[in-house]
């Protein structure tokens, strides 16, 4: 009787057990896989970076050599995603943001006048200090830090 009763009471459990177990296994399996993906995706992402750069951090960037920019010359170079004007005068190598402080045009190096020139409204900037020489720009070009190592020119944020 008791066996009967036992069998009566346990039968429905037995019947439902495979279904519950299966669901539970499925859930746990899903959990294990999603955890694995969640942990390893960033690691793979780090190991295989996207094609676009990071946008230029505070790190210094090699922009050329002293031979590329000899004394009396200037050049616009990309540092990260930002254009930078590097000048080489008697007073050394200097670098400034190449974004004009008037309306944000990109300046150029004027080899005739030996000045940094904004082509939009003829704003002129001093190649040694970045100060406004003439024209509408209201402020000097922001300075960037420059280091010269073994003839290599590195530029970073000021």
């Amino acid at each position, binding site marked *: 009787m008791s066996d009967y009763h036992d069998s009566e009471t346990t039968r429905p459990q037995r019947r439902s057990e495979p279904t519950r177990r299966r669901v539970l296994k499925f*859930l746990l399996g*899903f959990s294990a896989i999603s955890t694995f993906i969640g942990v390893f995706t960033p690691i793979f992402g780090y190991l295989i970076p996207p094609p676009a750069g990071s946008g230029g951090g505070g790190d210094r960037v090699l922009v050329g050599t002293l031979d590329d920019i000899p004394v009396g010359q200037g050049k616009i170079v990309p540092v990260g995603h930002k254009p930078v004007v590097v000048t080489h005068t008697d007073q050394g190598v200097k670098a400034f943001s190449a974004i004009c402080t008037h309306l944000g045009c990109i300046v150029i190096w004027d080899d005739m006048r030996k000045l940094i020139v904004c082509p939009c409204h003829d704003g002129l900037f001093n190649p040694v200090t970045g100060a406004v020489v003439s024209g509408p720009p209201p402020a000097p070009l922001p300075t960037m830090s420059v280091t010269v190592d073994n003839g290599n020119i590195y530029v970073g944020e000021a």
Partner: protein
Amino acid sequence: MTRTHSFCKRLMGTVLWGMILSILILTMIGAELAQAQPEDPPSPQGPAPPITHTLVGRSNCLICHATGFGDAAANPPDHVDYTNDVCEDCHEAAPGTTPPSPWSDLAPDALPQRIEHPPTEGKNSCVDCHLVLGETHTEISEQWQESVHGQSDVGCVECHGGDARTDEMNLSMDPASGFIGVPTRADIPHVCGSCHADVEEMRQYNLPTDQYVKYIESVHGVRLQTFKDVNVAVCTDCHGTHDVKKASDPTAAVYPLNVPELCASCHADPEYMASYNIPIDQFDIYKTSVHGRALLEDQDVRAPSCASCHGSHAAQPPDSEEVVNVCGKCHTATEAYYKESRHSRIGENAPKCWTCHGTHDVIKPDESMFLHEEPTEQECTTCHVDENTFRMDKARFANPEDRRCDTCHHENSMIMVQVQAILDALIAADASYTLAEETIQEAATRGMIVSDAENQLAQARTSLISARAAVHTTKLPMISQLTEDAIASAQEAYSIAHNRLRENEMRRLAMIIAVVVILINMLAFYALKRELYSQLD
């Protein structure tokens, strides 16, 4: 009857006394009035003695003559109520007491000579006395002390002459000591120029010395010199008299931000300008212009004031021929482009800056400046004074709405085909730029890094602004090249920003999936917990 008679007697007595009293009062008032009317002084005993000293700089006779100060004759008793303004009604200045202007013989092209006076020996007796005389005397003395002249030890005698060493008025204010008193308006440029045109003198202050020459050549100076018009501006009207300040002092009337108002103080005054037949609305128009707003609202001292285009000491409206150089002084890049244009090669009759941009009413230019909204009807004489000359009719361009390419160029002309092509190129570049800019802004708002797109946009901006400036060349190939560059850079910027937006959407989707996954995991752990507990039971 007796009572009536006595009443009549009393009444007549009262009337009689009243009449006597009235006559007495009227006589007293009459005497009083007679005394209070110095314009009709009692007939003197013989002619009034002439004035024997210079009147230059002396307007207060009573300061000495009321009591007979020093060797001045004391007023007779019957002058006791006389005021300063009636003295010269009877007393005439003796010949020679009013010295002629020191510059009366100045040749038109000569510089004014300095006022000769004895050396000051570090003294300034003028201020010692005038400072304590009260009212205007004290006021101007204090102003001088605070002024740039007072601070630089440029004493009263440099402008008024006289002997600064002595307190003796007759000596210090003696024409023999070069005393000229208050200079006439006609003499003021000479007074100021006597020092300010002196290169040796001005070197120590590092001041220019050409203002006098410029002034004499200016429209003000010519009117003053040639037409003896003393209503025109002289140095003191702009710089002040005793209170002269440095032009770099923001409280000075000649400080750049204050110049338009200074000029308007005369030039916007209808009464003052009535006899000159010139417009008086320039200041109101200028205030709303791109230049006026930059100077007066943004307080940008680099923005042009009246003096930037008309000159200050050399004030003169620029000639139509000179306008390109005047504007080009600041708009250097645009001037260079204009000089490459066909317009500039037409010469004297060419459209100049004012033809399209106006003068006092210059506004921010845009693509609407190309064509009228409605096609226009043109004859040759629409723009040219007559058909046989190319001379432009200025009045035709007075209205900003009429400063358009199709104001002059006929709708069906070859030139208009080019105008339309330039306009289309600019509109296309502007549209690409705007789309890229908006997309970048949206991506930035969603927290995406867009510095690379911004760099491309800066490149597009450089080409677009250069293309707009290059419109002054009227050369389609040059403008098209620049607009194409602008479009290429703008499209690159747009595609970067657009990709960032898609990336952002992907990330959002990924986040939703991650949240769902987390919920499923939570469900799994909950189910596992229940299973374990049920096994324990």
